[in-house]
């Protein structure tokens, strides 16, 4: 009987939410301090942003939103968005899909998991696509497949290089077979693109998996990745279940993939823009392109001149983007993200007078 006295002492458990709620008002505004998931160090949110969301202590690359990516990649942080009005429907009437879509839209302010558009990098005109992991884990359904395909086709029409930043958990289950077939659609479009000697640079960011990695993301002339980015076909848990072994931490990282011959290069975020510009420059003779800045303003159609001033940087972070070609071009991005743009609008020629 006495034993019980010593053994079973009951503690009241307070759920963590309540604990937090009851704590005196010492609340830190969200985003002020951010803990690095890799090294555990805590950084000022502002400082982290200044550092392009790369951990100053351990170089961990945090995931970026689409707008942040545009801001640090495109000249002046500008992307003239294409096909902004494509939205998902519920093709197989999957229970809960419509609600989930609405919720993702509210959460991110995006319409779908990819943003495509035209702009310049280091003065070179490109068609760019950026997947958003925030939106439905960057999964590819009909809209992502269609927008990527249209971006490929746009790059072909323009005779411009194509750059896609991938971040995706894979196919979008809720669209079932329609989702699977987007892999074939985007790949078939790339077959045409490559046949016409188009330049496609695929940038793998954390994470790139499944249906995206097994279609357009690996069908590039150059496959580069951000440090530490997860890249593979099957997910780690599934693989561990299959082989009944624990996988090493570095499995499927960019560095691991580089070592196994699956990538051309791992490029630090701070060097990414300059690296892309360099690659574009090295293909300039193929494309007959010169950087827009060098071509001068005369190459820009007159009706675009007055719009130049409207090109505000997309987000504040744009100002932190590495300075490259200062006065890139006036034509290629007269609408800042996220302003809606009609896809068929007359576009600037990226300042280049002789694109095909």
């Amino acid at each position: 009987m006495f034993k019980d006295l010593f053994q079973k002492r009951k503690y009241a458990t307070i759920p963590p939410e309540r604990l937090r709620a009851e704590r005196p008002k010492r609340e830190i505004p969200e985003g002020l301090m951010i803990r690095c998931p890799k090294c555990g160090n805590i950084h000022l949110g502002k400082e982290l942003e200044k550092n392009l969301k790369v951990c100053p202590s351990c170089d961990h690359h945090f995931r970026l939103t689409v707008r942040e990516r545009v801001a640090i990649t495109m000249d002046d942080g500008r992307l003239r968005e294409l096909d902004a009005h494509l939205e998902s429907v519920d093709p197989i009437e999957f229970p809960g899909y419509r609600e989930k879509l609405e919720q993702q839209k509210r959460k991110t302010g995006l319409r779908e998991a990819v943003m495509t558009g035209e702009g310049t990098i280091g003065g070179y005109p490109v068609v760019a696509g950026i997947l958003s992991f925030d939106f439905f884990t960057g999964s590819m359904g009909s809209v992502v497949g269609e927008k990527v395909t249209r971006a490929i086709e746009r790059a072909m029409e323009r005779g411009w290089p194509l750059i896609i930043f991938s971040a995706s958990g894979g196919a979008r289950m809720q669209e079932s077979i329609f989702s699977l077939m987007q892999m074939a659609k985007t790949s078939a479009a790339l077959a045409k693109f490559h046949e016409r000697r188009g330049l496609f640079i695929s940038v793998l960011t954390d994470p790139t998996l499944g249906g995206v990695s097994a279609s357009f993301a690996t069908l590039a002339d150059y496959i580069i990745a951000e440090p530490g980015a997860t890249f593979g076909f099957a997910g780690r848990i599934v693989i561990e279940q299959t082989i009944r072994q624990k996988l090493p931490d570095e499995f499927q990282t960019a560095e691991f993939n580089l070592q196994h011959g699956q990538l051309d290069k791992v490029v630090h975020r701070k060097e990414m823009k300059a690296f892309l510009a360099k690659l574009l420059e090295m293909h300039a003779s193929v494309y007959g392109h010169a950087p827009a800045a060098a071509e001068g303003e005369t190459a820009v159609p007159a009706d675009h001149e007055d719009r130049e001033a409207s090109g505000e940087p997309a987000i504040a972070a744009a100002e932190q983007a590495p300075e490259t070609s200062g006065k890139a071009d006036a034509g290629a991005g007269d609408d800042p993200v996220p302003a809606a743009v009609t896809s068929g609008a007359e576009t600037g020629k990226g300042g280049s007078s002789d694109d095909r």
Partner: protein
Amino acid sequence: MTAELPFERPLADLRRKIEELKKFGEEKQIDFSEEIARLEERYRQMEEELYGNLGAAQILQLARHHQRPTSLDYIERIFTDFIELHGDRLFADDLAIVGGIARLDGIPVTVVGHQRGKDTKDNIRRYFGSPHPEGFRKALRLMRQADKFRRPIITFIDTKGAYPGDTAEMRGQSEAIARNLMEMSSFGVPIVCVVIGEGGSGGALALGVGNRVLMLENAIYSVISPNGAASILWKDASKADQAAEYMKITAADLKAFGIVDEVVPEPMGGAHRNPDEQAAAVKDAVWRHLQELLGMTPEELIEDRFRKFRAIGRFTEAQPEQTAECADYAE
């Protein structure tokens, strides 16, 4: 005797009862013919009811039936002079994929398919029909050869999916699948694909970019296995049946979506009940579609295939200020 599935048990029980009655009658020299006829009639009714209204979960069981005919079963019944060819010339010969050259009604063709094992030992050798990159690269090598020699390509799709293992990842599983998708879309020869069992995800699609995609009545085609979907959706893989219903993975669904060109009927109770009859039906369908494609030029074939896949996808494209639905892109 074919192995029965759980949902087939009432039918199998009745069959056993009939057999017992027959045997009993013979032994005791009693005439039960009236009762037997009545039971047989009831059996036929039950059969029609059961197989006429199969749900996705039951179809899934039929698609995965261990006695269901495999690629090699079809190959030996449909083609003549089959010569199996091996290896990707890069790393290994992946037995999860078989392929080679053969004749279809006298015409040389290249045939490639996923290959499940016939028993446990065979399944282990063949990784249960789930290819590694070398399997997809073997398939690609054979299809390139077909393109070079202007032979039509016939593929049989039957896999749970690409092998999800560490070695497969290290050798570029993603790239191998992606490359097949891209190159299949640009071959200037007719390609007819037949989903004979389980069409599982990217590993299935890697043999699936054809001018025509046919599907057996009880085959399935899905972006993720219903078990996988269930474990993602409800953290419970045992709810696969419900996921199967939700995901619209049957031949009838895919035909309705315009993704599959023809559904090849199966004998009552599934392809494994009569492999010969099934193979004849597949041959007939493949041959019919091939006839239509043989008259096309390489350019026309490429364009035909491109258009087929380019059109797949359903979405709305709202212009600012207006919401016009153009959901039916898949035609």
